[in-house]
Every structure is written in structure tokens, then in C-alpha cells.
């Protein structure tokens, strides 16, 4: 019996199943093995279930799509905000950010007073929170008895998770009266000569907003700083101690100097949080667009003007000016956060910190 001649077509048919992409491969080629009618039971079972190649690809595709959706969200937010603020973008251009006019009646808008309020409250809050947060982080990582460590970090985590509006509620009923009746007059009496504590003290204003901001960002800064300091290898500490350093010298040269990049990152992260904090600030800042030297004066921040005026904004230009403020806030916090995350990651190598 002559063997059948192998034609061009046949060879293609044999080779093709291996060469084609995985989607078309399964499971036909194995099932139709020529001349081999009896397959082993195991092979039959496996092939009848398919190789999973298609399912795997679909699965990977789905997961990838969801991962990419995070990029999509960012791009989409920028796009929609630019789209909706086009009116104000074209009308005022860059001057929007250097003019302090805010007159919804005559349609004249500028964001300078809000930028001022945001910067003053955020920087003041940082000035109050950073030294304290450093102290807490140093205490927690270097000095604290092991037994106290967990409860204290638990409390700070809990406080970092309390909603902004609840802090605002507390500030309205506790902090504002304290500012009005005790702290404010005291500051005026002893530091009035600086010119920072002048004018009528309502209890609400830039200083009150800064204090509540400081309280809110403290747990965040201290817990990230703690994570960063814990990432410094113990051998560094031991090396410095072995040279005869005191504990503080060990912390300064062995820990803080090694962790300084990450600590700067933690502080900037706190700044990003302070810049965008909305509800608590809106409730105690007084909501008045003004550039005042006195810290008692009511102010306005970028976030609080949106929160306060957005749902009452009449007219397209008014609305688009507010959306432009939102766009500015978004871009600034994106940049600030990107810098901060980069710095923190450089130290902790990508492990996320406990409090965001």
C-alpha cells in the first residue's frame, strides 16, 4: 500500500494549529489527531475543559481595563472640567488667578483672594502640625515603650478617619467659642503689636480654619512619618549608637538624616490634604472673599468657595468660574501629591502608608 502523498494543503493543516494565535487554537487540533482514536482518559478530560487560553485572555483584558480605568478617571476629570470651564477660561485667561475681584452680579471673577486664603490657612496649619507630628513620630518609633505603640497609632488612625464634617461640627460648637472668648483676646493682648491679630474677632476666620486644618492633618503627617522612620534599617541606628552617640544624636544622624526625603514627602502630602480640605474649613472660615492681613479676618479658600456657592451659582459664567477654580485645585493637588508620593516612595519603596 502506497503511503498517501503529502500535499501542500496537508502540511499546512498540520503546521497551522501551532502557528496560529491562541484564540483559534483550542481545542480542535488535539481532538482531531489522525489515526489515534483512543485518547487517554486524563487527556480527554483536560481537553474537554479547554486550555483556558481564551478565558485567560478575556480575564486579563478585564483586569487590565479596570486598572487602566484609573488613568481614564484622571484624564476624564481634566477633560470634563476644562470643557465646563471653557467660558471662564476664554473670558479671563490667566488673569483669573491674579485678580481678586469676585462679583457675581456684574460677572467679574478672579481667584486671587481664594488662593490667598488657601495658602495662608494651609501653610499656617503646616507650621502648627509639622513640629508636633515630628515629635509624635519620633516618640512612637524611638522612645515609646512597645506596649504603648499600638494603642497610640490606633488612636491616630482612628482620628485620621473621622469625617471632615464631624470635625467641622466640633469646630463650630467648641473651637469657635474658644477662639472668640479666650484664645483670640489673649493673642490680641500679647501679640496684637504684630498686626496679625487685629480687627473684630468673630471667632470664625483664617486662624480658626488653620487650627482645625492642623488638627486634621496631624494624624496623617505623623503616621506617614512614622512609617518612613520605621523603614530606616536598624543597623543604621546601631552603627551610630556604637560610635558613642546619645539617643538624640542617633535619631538626628541615623534616622532623620536617612529619612529626610520621605519626611519632606510626608509634609507635602499633608499640604496636599490641607489645600483640598473642604467641609470643616467652610464651616469656620467665615466665607468672605477678602485679602486681609489679620488672621482674625474671615476668609475663603478655593475649596470652600466651591462648596458654598456652587449650588446657588446662577449664570453660566459664574458656574464656569467656579469649575475653573475646581480645575485649578485638581491640577495643583495632583502635582503636589505626585511630588509627595515620589518622595515617600523613594524611601518606603512603594508600600502604601496606613493613613492617606
Amino acid at each position, binding site marked *: 500500500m502506497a503511503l498517501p502523498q503529502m500535499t501542500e494543503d496537508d502540511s499546512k493543516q498540520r503546521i497551522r494549529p501551532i502557528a496560529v494565535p491562541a484564540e483559534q487554537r483550542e481545542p480542535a487540533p488535539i481532538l482531531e489527531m489522525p489515526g489515534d482514536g483512543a485518547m487517554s482518559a486524563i487527556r480527554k478530560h483536560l481537553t474537554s475543559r479547554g*486550555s*483556558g487560553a481564551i*478565558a*485567560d485572555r478575556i480575564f*486579563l483584558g478585564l*483586569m*487590565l*481595563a*479596570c*486598572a487602566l480605568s*484609573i488613568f481614564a478617571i*484622571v484624564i476624564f476629570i481634566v477633560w470634563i*472640567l476644562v470643557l465646563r470651564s471653557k467660558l471662564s477660561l476664554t473670558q479671563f485667561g490667566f488673569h483669573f488667578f491674579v485678580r481678586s475681584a469676585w462679583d457675581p452680579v456684574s460677572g467679574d471673577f478672579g481667584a486671587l483672594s481664594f488662593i490667598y486664603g488657601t495658602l495662608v490657612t494651609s501653610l499656617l496649619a503646616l507650621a502648627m502640625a509639622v513640629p*508636633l507630628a*515630628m*515629635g*509624635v513620630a*519620633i516618640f512612637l518609633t524611638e*522612645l515609646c515603650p512597645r506596649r504603648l505603640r*499600638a494603642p*497610640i497609632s490606633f*488612636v*491616630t*488612625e482612628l*482620628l485620621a*478617619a*473621622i*469625617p*471632615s*464634617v464631624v*470635625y*467641622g*461640627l*466640633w469646630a*463650630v460648637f467648641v473651637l469657635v467659642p474658644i477662639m472668640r472668648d479666650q484664645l483670640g483676646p489673649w493673642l490680641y493682648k500679647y501679640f496684637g503689636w504684630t498686626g496679625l491679630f487685629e480687627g473684630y474677632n468673630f471667632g470664625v476666620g483664617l486662624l480658626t480654619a488653620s487650627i482645625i486644618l492642623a*488638627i486634621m492633618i496631624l*494624624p496623617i503627617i505623623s503616621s506617614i512619618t512614622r*512609617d518612613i522612620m520605621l523603614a530606616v534599617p536598624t543597623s543604621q541606628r546601631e552603627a551610630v549608637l556604637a560610635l558613642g552617640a*546619645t*539617643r*538624640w*544624636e542617633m535619631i538626628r544622624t541615623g534616622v532623620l538624616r536617612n529619612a529626610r526625603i520621605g519626611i519632606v514627602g510626608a509634609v507635602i502630602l499633608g499640604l*496636599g490634604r490641607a489645600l483640598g480640605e473642604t*467641609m470643616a474649613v467652610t*464651616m469656620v472660615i467665615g466665607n468672605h472673599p477678602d485679602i486681609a492681613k489679620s488672621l482674625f479676618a474671615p476668609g475663603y479658600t478655593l475649596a470652600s468657595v*466651591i*462648596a458654598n456657592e456652587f*449650588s446657588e451659582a446662577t449664570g453660566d459664567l459664574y458656574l464656569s468660574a467656579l469649575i475653573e477654580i*475646581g480645575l485649578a*485645585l*485638581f491640577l495643583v*493637588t*495632583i502635582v*503636589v*501629591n505626585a511630588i509627595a508620593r*515620589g518622595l515617600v516612595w523613594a524611601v518606603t519603596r*512603594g508600600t*502604601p*502608608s496606613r493613613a*492617606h
Partner: protein
Amino acid sequence: MSTNPLYTPPPGRDESPLHIPLDINSRYIRLNRVRRQAVNRAVTVLAILSTVLVIVPLVAIFVYLLYMGASSLNLAFFTKIPAPVGAEGGGMANAIVGSGVVLAIASVLGIPVGIAAGVYLAEFGRGKMLAAAVRFTADVLNGVPSIVMGISAYSLIVTVQHHFSAFSGGVALAIMMVPTITRTTEEMLATVPHAIREAALGLGVPKWRTVLSVSLKTASPGIITGCMLAFARVAGETAPLLFTAFGNQFWSFKLNEPIAALPLQIYVYAISPYDEWHRLAWAGSLVLIVMIMVAVTLVRIYAARGMMKGAS
């Protein structure tokens, strides 16, 4: 003769000390030691002081919130809708249900996307540039002010529909949930031992099945807790709901109508001039705080078990 870079000569002596035997009991060295120890003590005291200065007021705030909330809470809070201005009583039943509706929408939209993105990062993206970029973007997105999410959802949905709606509020919160859940899921999956995955793959289980039935299942307690934390966090968000869900004084269950939400109601009542409303605001805060406490505590328990190292 070269000078010793590690040694600053005492004032009045400028010669290099290398040829002089160091007298560790000399007056200068002794004073230096006293100074260094004094600085050490001062800094230690400062660190302890700042911790006390931070922890005590924060705990005081917390206890005050609990106290005010507990003394304002009653059954009517959970069963009645807000009373008209000036009338006694009333509750936030509609706001609690409204929060539930908005959060349900947010969870349905946000949790699957967040978990899937986390699965990609942990199971498929190890060591890839793309995964690092996603991770970074998620962390950055986490820090974006919530009010921006509110404007985005407003611009996307409310301006198209021409009215405020529960759905738009849910979308705003969902966007906020995604990055947190993504990062937690990734962290949880990273704690699953490789041997388990390899065992499954070695048995001929397809990759997708391995991920779903082995990796995710093993990490599920941690992932569920992470989702709870994200849920608790957005449950307290007010800013994104201001001009999406908008608030409502009455019952509402429809997705395309304005709906009440607990944090919104707290905000409105806190800045109102009525004592009765203030009382309700405190009670509402207590409900939010208790929810968050439960979530954070659960995360802590898993963290202590080593399930969620570094996740939040």
C-alpha cells in the same frame, strides 16, 4: 600635619590633637558630654510632650463627640424624618436610608473596578512599568480633594440630566472608592504565598480560575475589610454630595431624584441656627463615627494577624 576632620579643637586651642593623648576626663570633654546629654534629655522631653499635646486634645475631641452624640441620640433619630423648622423632635431616617442608597450605588460601581485593578497590579503587573504607573496614579488620585469629584460628577451627570440625583452622588463616591480599594486589594494579594498559586497552576487550573478561587479567596478577609474601610471613609464624605445628591427633607428612593444623605444633613444642621437641629447633627455624627470605628478596628485586627501588612 593634617587636621582631624572629626575633631573640633576646644576654644583657645587650635593645634591638631592627633599628637596629644586624648584626656577623656578633661574639662572640655566633660562639659561636652554634659551638654550632649542635656540636649538628649531635652529632646526626649519635647517628643513626649508633643505626643501628650497631640493625643490628649485629640482624644478629648473624640470623647466629646461620643458624649454629645450619645446624649442626643434617641429612637426617633432612626425612625422619623426631619421635623419642620421650630418643631420639636424629628430624626434622620430618610438621610440614613438615602446614605444607604448612595453608598450602595457607589459600592456596586466602585468595588468591582477597584478589586479588578488590584488583581491586575498583584497578579499580572509585577515588575511592569504600566503597573507602577497605575499604582502611582491611584495613590495620587487618593489625595485629590473630594470636592473635585463632586464637580466632575456634577459636570458629567447633573448638567446632562438637568437635575440633582442620587445616581450622580453614587458615581462621585465610586470614583473616590476605586484607588483605595485597588491599593488594599493589591497589598492583600501580595500576602498570598506563591506556593498556593503554583499548586493550583500545577494541577492544570487556568490562570483566571487560580486568581478567582485561590488568590482572591485566600486574601478575601483582608480585601473585604479594605472595602469596608473605603466604604466607611466615603460614607462620611460631604463635599462630593453637595451638588450631586443635594439633600432632601423627605423620603426619596428614586435614583434620579435628589436624595438625603447623613453627612449632608449634618452639615446643613450644624450651620443652622436651631438647637434642635444641632442636637440631630451631633447624633448623626455619632452614627458616622461608630461606623468608622468598627471599620478601622476590623482593619487593625487583620493587621495584627499579619493579613494586611501596610494596607489601609
